[in-house]
């Protein structure tokens, strides 16, 4: 199947978010694709606050079954979380478990005023009651098909993996 152009979706997503951001809004990218996306959105939206990044490996609900990811990175939120408007950014929304883990981690940094979710692609297959606030495209994929963001130089593209 043919996948939409990620660079185009990025512009669509930025247009959706733009009217809703204020001077205290901060983007929080989820490793790895979400961080690339957050960096691009940050530039397009000209946000004042720096970008945060989360690696939710320590909060995943399948830790006991699958073990720790080999390349777990440090999370970094270079701003006060307490009372802030935050937008979680991820490339693909699937089961909703990553978002659940990210919310848990966020609240260990403080109590944000409001948390929203921006994704490039909603591919369906939710296992938790999670919905995106901003979403550039929806895809109807078979359950075992995976789609993820790739970065080549400074160009983003969507790729199918697995089957």
């Amino acid at each position, binding site marked *: 199947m043919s996948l939409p152009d990620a660079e185009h979706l990025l512009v669509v997503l930025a247009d959706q978010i733009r009217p809703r951001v204020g001077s205290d809004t901060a983007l929080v990218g989820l490793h790895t694709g979400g961080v690339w996306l957050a960096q691009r959105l940050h530039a397009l939206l000209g946000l004042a606050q720096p970008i945060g990044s989360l690696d939710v490996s320590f*909060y995943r609900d399948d830790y006991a079954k699958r*073990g*720790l990811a*080999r390349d*777990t990175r*440090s999370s970094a939120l270079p701003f006060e*979380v307490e009372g802030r408007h935050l937008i979680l950014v991820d490339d693909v929304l699937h089961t909703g478990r990553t978002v659940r883990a990210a919310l848990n981690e966020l*609240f260990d*940094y403080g109590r944000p005023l409001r948390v929203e979710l921006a994704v490039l692609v909603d591919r369906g297959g939710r296992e938790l009651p999670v919905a995106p606030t901003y979403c550039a495209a929806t895809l109807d994929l078979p359950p075992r098909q995976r789609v993820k963001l790739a970065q080549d130089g400074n160009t983003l593209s969507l790729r199918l993996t697995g089957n």
Partner: protein
Amino acid sequence: MARNPQLNRHGELQHLLTTEGLPRDVITRILDTAEPFTVVAEREVKKLPLLRGKSVFNLFFENSTRTRTTFEIAAKRLSADVINLNISTSSTNKGETLLDTVDNLAAMQADMFVVRHASSGAPYLIAQHLEATGRDHIHVINAGDGRHAHPTQGLLDMYTIRHYKRDFTQLSVAVVGDILHSRVARSQIHALTTLGVPDLRAIAPKTLLPADIDRLGCRVFHDMAEGLRGVDVVMMLRLQNERMQGSLLPSPQEYFKFFGLTQEKLALAKPDAIVLHPGPMNRGVEIDSAVADGRQAVILPQVTFGIAVRMAVMAMLGSVEA
């Protein structure tokens, strides 16, 4: 060939008993895993949910408030329930054997034992016993056994060195002091060799060196000035006061004169050399206060990194199936 008792059949860490024979990629994996844990200490909530619902038993057959505390903090930051048992003052005095104690605690649904014991091999014995009795879902971490090993100390020292010096394969490292009685020294030396340190030196008086020191891959020096020349890392060892009683050493003053680390002796190392010490320090015996408090000492960062490294070990063990 017999299976490495620390690894399961998939080559994953099952127990941490010693750094000896621990594969390089397992050591590197522990150090890599520890890195994101260092950030947790700076957060509002210094806790992660990884060991939620698990019980960690600190089994200390030999007193060590500091080591026990660091394991306790590490386990608590991973949300485990921690039970501290100072058995030197408890049931073994009533005649219970080591393995009876272990069986009782296992029956209380323990998930992990952190073991400190005066006898070399005690944690290994416990791990073997658990496996032989079909309870290999319980993990054992050696928190120091006799003169044998203190692997988490060795690993936190590796983390500290990597933090400041990056590449082990370019380093000159000197281990200084009572190597004969030191489980810390043994754990350091095995880890340093595995990580590929090309120039490893042991500096000590003849009476404080083990007979097999050459086989450990160290160059031996009996003179500080010679041994410290040009090194990147100086790893000081604690001189245990009780060793002073026998005939091994003349006096603390004389030991300090020849083997105590002073600024003058440290000046022979590279200008950016770092100084480690596992604590607690004997100021004026193995290390001068000017060095301990000086700009080259990384002794307090070692303590901070130690929590992250112990968290990493526990987190890795907690996710391993038997």
